[in-house]
C-alpha cells in the first residue's frame, strides 16, 4: 500500500529547511505551490551542520530552528550536494523485483565506492527505460549521518518526511521555469563555498553529474577554473556530447562567483538562477541561496 502511495507526488508541508554550508536557511510559506508567500525566512550561520545535528547538541539546534518556524510537525529537508553521492547509472537487464534491483545497483557501486555499501542509504529514480536497459539517477548518503539528522528533528517533535539534494531541486526549478533547453546539452552549476556541482543535461534529462568538494579557502580561483575546464572537457570528449547550449548558474552565497570567462565559449549563454525569481507579486527576490527551497515548495 505504501509503495503504491509513493507513486503519487506527496503532499508536502509548507515548511522546509536547507542545510548547506555556510548557512542554514529555513522557510515557511503560506501554501506550497506557485506564487509562494513567505511567512518566515530565517537564516543563520553554520560551521559544520552535519556534525552539529548528529551530535548531542543537534536536538537543541533543531528545537531552536523549529521554534522560529512556528513548531511545525512536518518539515522537508534539503541538504547540500556534498552530503550525498549522486550519479547516473545505466543498467542492462533491469529486473522487475525491487530487491533484485537494489542488489544489482549495490553490486555495481561496490566496484566504484571505497566505503561499505551496506552503510549507505540508497534511493534511485528511473530516468529512462528501454527494452534492453534502464538509466537511473542514484542518490546515496551515509545511513548513520542522515538517521542522526532525522533523529534530531524527531526528538524536537517534528517529522522529516522529505530529504532531497540541492542540485536535484535546482534541476527541478530549471525544468519548471523552462530554463533548460528542450534539445541539446546544458549545464547546471551549483557553486557553494564547500562544493561545486556539475549537472549536465541533454534535452532536459540529466546525463552526467559531478560534485567536487571545495573546502573553504582551499581552492583558489585558478583551481576552480581548472576543475571547470577538466569537467567540461570530459563531458565533451569522453562522453561525446556537443557544444553546450546554455549554462545555468547558482551561487550560494550570492557574492560567490565562478571564473567562467575564458573557460566556456563566448556565445554560450550563462544565466544566473534566482536573479529574477520573486514568488508572490511585490515580494523581494529570493536570490540563489533560497532557490532549492523555492523549487521544492513550488513543485511542478
Amino acid at each position, binding site marked *: 500500500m505504501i509503495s503504491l502511495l509513493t507513486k503519487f*507526488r*506527496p503532499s508536502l508541508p509548507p515548511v522546509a529547511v536547507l542545510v548547506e554550508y555556510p548557512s542554514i536557511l529555513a522557510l515557511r510559506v503560506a501554501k506550497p505551490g506557485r506564487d509562494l508567500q513567505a511567512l518566515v525566512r530565517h537564516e543563520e550561520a553554520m560551521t559544520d551542520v552535519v556534525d552539529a545535528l548528529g551530535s548531542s547538541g543537534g536536538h537543541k539546534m533543531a528545537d531552536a530552528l523549529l521554534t522560529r518556524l512556528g513548531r511545525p510537525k512536518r518539515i522537508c529537508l534539503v541538504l547540500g550536494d556534498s552530503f550525498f553521492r549522486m550519479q547516473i547509472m545505466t543498467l542492462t537487464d533491469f529486473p522487475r523485483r525491487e530487491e533484485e534491483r537494489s542488489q544489482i545497483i549495490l553490486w555495481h557501486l561496490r566496484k566504484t565506492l571505497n566505503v561499505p555499501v551496506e552503510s549507505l542509504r540508497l534511493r534511485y529514480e528511473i530516468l529512462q527505460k528501454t527494452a534492453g536497459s534502464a538509466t537511473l539517477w542514484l542518490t546515496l548518503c551515509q545511513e548513520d549521518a542522515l538517521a542522526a539528522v532525522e533523529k534530531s528533528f524527531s526528538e524536537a517533535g517534528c517529522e522529516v518526511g522529505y*530529504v532531497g539534494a540541492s542540485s536535484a531541486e535546482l534541476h527541478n526549478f530549471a525544468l519548471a521555469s523552462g530554463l533548460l533547453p528542450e534539445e541539446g546539452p546544458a549545464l547546471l552549476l551549483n557553486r557553494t563555498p564547500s562544493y561545486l556541482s556539475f549537472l549536465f543535461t541533454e534535452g532536459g534529462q540529466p546525463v552526467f553529474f559531478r560534485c567536487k568538494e571545495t573546502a573553504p579557502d582551499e581552492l583558489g580561483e585558478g583551481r576552480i577554473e581548472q576543475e571547470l575546464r577538466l569537467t567540461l572537457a570530459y563531458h565533451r570528449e569522453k562522453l561525446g556530447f556537443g557544444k553546450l547550449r546554455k549554462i545555468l548558474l547558482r551561487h550560494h552565497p550570492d557574492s560567490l562567483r565562478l571564473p567562467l570567462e575564458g573557460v566556456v565559449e563566448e556565445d554560450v549563454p550563462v544565466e544566473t538562477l534566482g536573479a529574477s525569481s520573486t514568488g508572490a507579486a511585490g515580494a523581494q527576490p529570493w536570490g540563489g541561496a533560497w532557490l532549492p527551497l523555492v523549487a521544492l515548495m513550488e513543485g511542478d
Partner: protein
Amino acid sequence: MKRLSVNLATAPFVNRVAPVVAISAILGAALLLTLFNLTSFVLLGTEYRTARNVLKEQGQRLDALKKDMAEKEKILQSGSVTSLSEEAKFVARLLETKRFSWTRFLADVENIKPYGVMFQAVTPSVTPEGAVALNLRGQANPRSEMLKLEQNLFSSALFREVQLSSEQRQPGNPLTDFSITCIYLPEASDAP
C-alpha cells in the same frame, strides 16, 4: 523532461489525498446505504408486521381446517356413514315415487280412455333417468276400442314411447285382454 523526485527520508511523505478520497467515498457510500436500509426498515416494517400477522392467522386457520378435515375423513371412513348413505338413496327413491300423483294421472287417463276400455291394473315405476314408466293392463270390447286407446296415447303429449306389449282374446268371448307400456310425463302440456 522528467523532474528528479528522489526522497531519502526514512519515512517519506506520501500523498494522502488519494487514499483519503477513496476511503471517504467508501465510507460515504456505506453511510448512504445504511441510511437507506434504516429508512426502508422503518417504512416497510409496519407492512411487514401486518403481513406477518395475516400469515400467522391464515396458518392457524389452515391448521384448524386440516384438523377438521382429518376428523371428517375419519367419520366418513366409519361404517355408520355407509349405512347412512344407503338410507339416503332409499329416501331419494321414495321421494321420486311420491312425486307420482294418482289424482292427476286418473284425470289424464279419463281424457284418453275410450268408452269400451276397462283398466284392470295400472302399475307406475320410476326409471333410473327419473321418468315414470306405466304398465296399463285392461280389457276392450270391441277390439277397436283398444286401438282407439292406443291412438289416443300416441296423440297425447303426456305419453311417450307407447307400445302394445300383448293382446289376447278368448274364443267365444268378445273381450280383448291387452297390456300397454308407455312413459308418462305429467309435467308436459297436453295442449295441441
